[in-house]
């Protein structure tokens, strides 16, 4: 199932930040993890992921570094969660939990 754009706009950043909580990751890796760990629900293409990452970067929630792989001799950009991003993720998590509970109570989910 694909999530509608409006919902994705709210869920996408939180999902990406959650994946970065475990350590730094690069773009393709994030695409694959989102697809796999969300069972395809939050799967997003490059056209969605990279603008999302650049926006998080502009807000100071993630930081990036470029490293050239010794193996492939290719530059690759790695993203990690900043302290500000960690605090934001805590807030987002609480809000999603509250939202989830509320939607459950309303019978929108879990019914």
């Amino acid at each position, binding site marked *: 199932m694909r999530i509608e754009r409006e919902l994705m706009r709210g869920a996408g950043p939180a999902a990406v930040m959650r994946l970065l909580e475990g350590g730094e990751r690069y773009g*393709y890796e994030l695409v*694959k993890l989102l697809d796999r760990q969300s069972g395809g629900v939050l799967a997003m*293409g490059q*056209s*969605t992921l990279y*603008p999302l990452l*650049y926006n998080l*970067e502009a807000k100071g929630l993630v930081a990036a570094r470029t490293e050239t792989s010794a193996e492939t001799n290719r*530059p690759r*950009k790695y993203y990690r969660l900043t302290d500000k991003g960690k605090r934001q993720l805590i807030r987002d998590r609480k809000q999603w939990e509250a939202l989830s509970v509320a939607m459950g109570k309303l019978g929108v989910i879990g019914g």
Partner: protein
Amino acid sequence: MTCFMVNEEATMSEATQRSFFSRMRHTPMRDALRGRITGRLDVEYRLVTSGLPIPAQALIRRVVKRTRLWRIERVEVVDELIAHFLDGIDAGEPVDELIASFGDERAAARLIGRAKRRNRGVVWQALIALRWLACGIIVFYLLSAIYFYSGSPSINVNYVDRLNAPLKDAPADRLAWPLYRQAIPALRGERRINDEGDALLDAKPGSPYWPEAVAWLQSRKQAIELVRQAAQKPTLGFVYGPEGSQRDPDLWPRSDDWKTDADPLLADVLMPNLQDFRQIARVLHADARLAREQGDTARVMRNAETLGKLAGHVREGEVLVAHLVGLGIRHLMLDVIEEALNDSARNPLAPDNLQRLAHQLAHPTTAAELMSFTGDRMAIRDIIQRIYTDNGDGDGRLTPEGARLLKSFMVSHGGFPASWLEPLKVALTTPLLPVLSASRPELTAASERLFDIADANLAHPMRETDWAAYDQQIQSWQESAVDRIQFEPLRQWVRRGMIIAGLSGAQATAERYLGRRDGMLVALALEVYRQRHGDYPSALNDLVPALLPQVPADRITGGPLHYRIVDTKALVYSVGADRDDDEGRPARKRSGEPEPTLAARWHMSAGTAPDGDWVLYSPQPESE
């Protein structure tokens, strides 16, 4: 497709073999300054050397091109997208699937471009904000200009007609103007007798010019009599406006050239008759002097009475300037009476004459009876209707015609600097006037509030008035930049110095007349008492109630007027602005010359007030 592939390969071949100039062209300035020709901004080179299949290269090329990012940002995006595709290929994904899962190209370009721009520095963000601000200002300016230039005033009220309204049903035989009009030509033409501004009718008995003055007056007996008859009429009957009584080439030969707007501005209405009324009053004053010389007390009495009635006629003009001319005429009437009293040793005034004069002077008693600001209030309302639009509910905005009218005030009253930049400034700011200036209701409310304060004050003696709120309002228009812009129309009126700014001063002028009149009433009563008892009373209270209903109040303190005998003559005075009894000694000007009315000031602290009294009646011998 084959053709495309061939072209792409050709491009790749060219791109992989970069010339020095090509690398130079794609080298950042920073690298070039360090002597390194890196060519690292060459997106095409990066793509063709990436090892990506051509469809993937083409996709990235299209997306990056559409982002409209800086070259350095494009390189970052290209590198990341290349890495993404290569990672996918390394993971065994077919290129077609990777391209299919990329998403909407256009949306990607738009979102990537927007997101990358958010990462730009503060200076760039500030410049963009400034650009938006500038755009906003331009849009706002254009909208204001449309708003401004689409407005036009609607003149709904003809205030000149309102000024003339009392004449509408007045019968012709009750109108004084036709008689004054006949007399006026004969009463003009008085010649100057010296360089100090004195004219023939200023000559007094004993002066070398007196015989000529007498001849001048005697040759105009009929005209003077006509004036006396005119003064008996209840209504002046001067019709104001370009097509009214002012259009009279026999009286004013250039009146055909005067401005003749079909719908004239009330403030521009001419009152050429005022100058002639002033001259008539001078003639009556001089004729009273001649009458005393001739022992003709009845003529003195008639001239004094005529001056009072003439002042009443002038007052019908309803605008401040007419009221001020009327007050001047009333002062001449007091001069006639004062001179007659001072001459009582030679030409004693009979008690019934003294009583008649006292009755004539008994009214008016307040400034509100001597003047009103009705005409001036109408003049401002007239201005407002000519500069604002009217939505029918009293609201409106400034119009181009209104701006032109205001500009004409500024130009004609020196408020429009001649700097070469000024026309440009005016051209640029004019369309903003409706936004910057006060709205019609705001301006109306501000002017009405001022006139309300003025009218309320006019009903009270000057000592009980409060002009502070009025003065503060006027002051704020001069000092506050915001108010100055917002209330420019009223401010221009203030600059003109004709209306509004002079209202408190006008009341003080009226109050000075009333004070002098009070003194004259006391002097008349004192003369009657002297004639009855052979001497003056010991105190003014002795005149009450037989000769005065009460002792008039000192118009500065509110206490009783003061009186004393100087050289067997009565002197009546107010203690003046310093509120200190100086035994009738008048305050002196800086030159040291005594000035009887210098101390007639209100709302001054005793410390700043001139030292001396306000002399209301002084039995000075008439001197040349």
